């Protein structure tokens, strides 16, 4: 019984133990907090890049010469891809870059913006022409239309997003576009506003000159993909309308493929097979890259592999670095306990004289470390988990209170700080703290047990 009683008394009597507890608290808390955020980052990134990319992306190189060229019409490639039993859906995208200006901008004002080095008004956007309803099946586009808005305004009818409601335009000739909600708020747009898209395309008649088409569209609503970059710089419109606007000979840029059962293995296997099949049918150019893979067919992981790999690396590194905090906390426990054993030599002698065994003495000192670990790890787990769950509001509060922006939401892909608390990870971290504290405590506790009680009793 004295083991529990005395260890608690010693713990209370020696305030230095608070340092050990504090160390374990900080180590456990920081590990849980940071790993939760990193896991959240990873999962959120994975989800959002996947949402916008679908599982496989086929982006053919349209050859310059007629012999090399592959069809610029997506019908055949879509049919070929959809024929595969593993494919759930496929949709074609036409992608181009544009300058966007509000209604009424004429050539002069556009040039003024382009020529001013200080202009903040230049908005280069990516315009994406899509087919409905194929797009709904292959990507998360529909979800991004129906998601609760933060800065934007939802379209009237998510099934027909590009339809211009009559109250905005009585003319059936005007086409609608769906704008990313951040872009919408940056340009101070409202539904029903008209925007002018201007760009440069190759002159189909003379290959050494350009055309600068521009066209006015009605903003019918916004989408929110939760991926900052997309929400800030993408505009969706109907693909046929876009082909008309650009007078483009190329009718699609990429085909997005959604698999029935997506895993890293299935998408890799299908990628290889589709590459061969499409190249044989001359639906893609068949370019082989340095990794000996078809360059025109990529899995979503390959597209964002560098990014995901970087975050994963960062997570592992953070875990290792913060584990060092626990290690240091372990050293602290070791130092404090060693000091206490020296200080309590006499007590150890007395206890032995009164019938304590070396094992009992060992356990008494181990228990001190146990309490250190218990209190520190428990507090750390509570605060770490709480912090991870509330990190977004905590960060906002800190930013507001101290006037320093800690997490710049525009830099990252998300508008909230993501975090995922993994109970298994929390349990492992707490367990790690215990193992660390007890292992470090074992040495001084062992020394205490080996102490000669007589020597301890002789000293005054």
């Amino acid at each position, binding site marked *: 019984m004295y083991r529990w009683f005395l260890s608690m008394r010693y713990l209370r009597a020696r305030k230095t133990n608070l340092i050990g507890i504090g160390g374990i608290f900080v180590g456990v808390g920081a590990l849980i907090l940071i790993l939760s955020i990193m896991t959240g980052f990873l999962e959120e990134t994975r989800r959002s890049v996947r949402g916008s990319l679908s599982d496989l992306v086929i982006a053919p190189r349209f050859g310059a010469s007629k012999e090399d060229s592959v069809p610029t019409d997506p019908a055949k490639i879509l049919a070929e891809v959809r024929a595969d039993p593993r494919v759930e859906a496929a949709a074609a995208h036409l992608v181009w870059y544009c300058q966007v200006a509000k209604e009424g901008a004429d050539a002069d004002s556009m040039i003024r913006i382009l020529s001013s080095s200080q202009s903040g008004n230049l908005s280069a956007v990516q315009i994406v022409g899509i087919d409905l309803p194929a797009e709904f099946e292959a990507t998360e586009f529909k979800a991004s239309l129906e998601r609760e808005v933060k800065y934007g305004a939802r379209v009237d009818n998510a099934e027909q997003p590009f339809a211009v409601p009559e109250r905005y335009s009585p003319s059936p000739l005007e086409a609608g576009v769906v704008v990313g909600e951040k872009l919408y708020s940056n340009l101070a747009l409202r539904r029903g506003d008209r925007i002018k898209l201007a760009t440069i395309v190759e002159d189909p008649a003379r290959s050494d000159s350009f055309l600068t088409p521009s066209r006015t569209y009605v903003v019918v609503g916004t989408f929110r993909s939760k991926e900052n970059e997309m929400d800030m710089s993408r505009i969706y419109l109907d693909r046929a309308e876009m082909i008309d606007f650009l007078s483009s000979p190329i009718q699609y840029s990429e085909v997005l493929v959604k698999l029935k059962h997506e895993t890293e293995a299935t998408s890799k296997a299908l990628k290889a097979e589709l590459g061969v099949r499409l190249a044989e049918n001359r639906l893609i150019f068949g370019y082989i890259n340095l990794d000996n893979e078809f360059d025109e067919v990529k899995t979503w992981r390959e597209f964002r592999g560098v990014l995901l790999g970087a975050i994963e690396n960062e997570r592992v590194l953070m875990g290792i670095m913060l584990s060092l905090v626990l290690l240091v906390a372990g050293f602290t426990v070791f130092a404090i306990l060693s000091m206490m054993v020296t200080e309590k030599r006499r007590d150890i*002698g007395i206890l032995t*004289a*009164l*019938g304590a*065994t070396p094992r009992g003495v060992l356990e008494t000192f181990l228990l001190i470390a146990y309490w250190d670990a218990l209190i520190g790890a428990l507090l750390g787990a509570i605060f770490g988990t709480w912090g991870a769950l509330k990190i977004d509001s905590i960060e906002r509060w800190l930013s507001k209170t101290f006037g320093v922006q800690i997490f710049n939401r525009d830099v990252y892909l998300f508008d909230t700080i993501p975090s995922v608390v993994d109970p298994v990870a929390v349990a492992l971290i707490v367990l790690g703290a215990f193992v660390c504290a007890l292992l470090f405590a074992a040495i001084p506790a062992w020394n205490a047990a080996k102490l000669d009680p007589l020597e301890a*009793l*002789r000293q005054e």
Partner: protein
Amino acid sequence: MIQNTTDRRKTPRDKPVLSARGVRKSYTLGDRTLEILHGVNMDLYRGEMLALTGTSGAGKSTLLHILGLLDRPSEGSVTLDGESAWEMSLTQRALIRNQRIGFVFQFYHLLPELDAVENVMLPAMIHESRGTFRRRRSEHTEHARELLATFGLADRGSHRPGQLSGGERQRVALARALFHDPAILIADEPTGNLDRATGERVLELIFREQERRGLSLLLVTHDERLALRCQRQLVMADGMIEIDTAIKIPD
């Protein structure tokens, strides 16, 4: 002053409660071996008061620690009620120190983090499991308070050793030694650190409890006058028992 009465067996006695036979103790310091005890034979009989005296360096403390089962003799045996202590397990010896032997030290040796009552109950804390102790805590507290009250410390129960005087500390230590009502009380210079009057008060209590409980008292002292108050005296010199004398034969 000391008479050598060789035939102490004139007084009828029980079998010894604690005896040492041929006890030798040596330490190795580097390549030198230092023998402190050169074959000590002695008996402590039931209910007797035995003084162990001798000059410093004679081996008193070493013998005391061996008799208290805190130290292992290099040779020879220590028996308690006929049982050989060093043939027992470590746990059994710990149990004997807890239950059958009470220790009083010169420097009190109380635990500074515990108050007087907790110090007195320490033997119970060491002996009992957490559950048992929790169940019997009020009983133990009661017992500890009674003991303290007997020694005039009724109002000192919740004081820490640091808040007590030397005499008070030694009385707390005596209460602790007697908590499990042991058969043997080993007192190592119990008054060595106290002034005469305070020491006298502590001694009176020790003698009173010895008589009341029929304790076998082993009192280590270098104070001849104190030794004279015991029934029998062992004088140690140079690691041996030189004189075994009955000073005062009870009426």
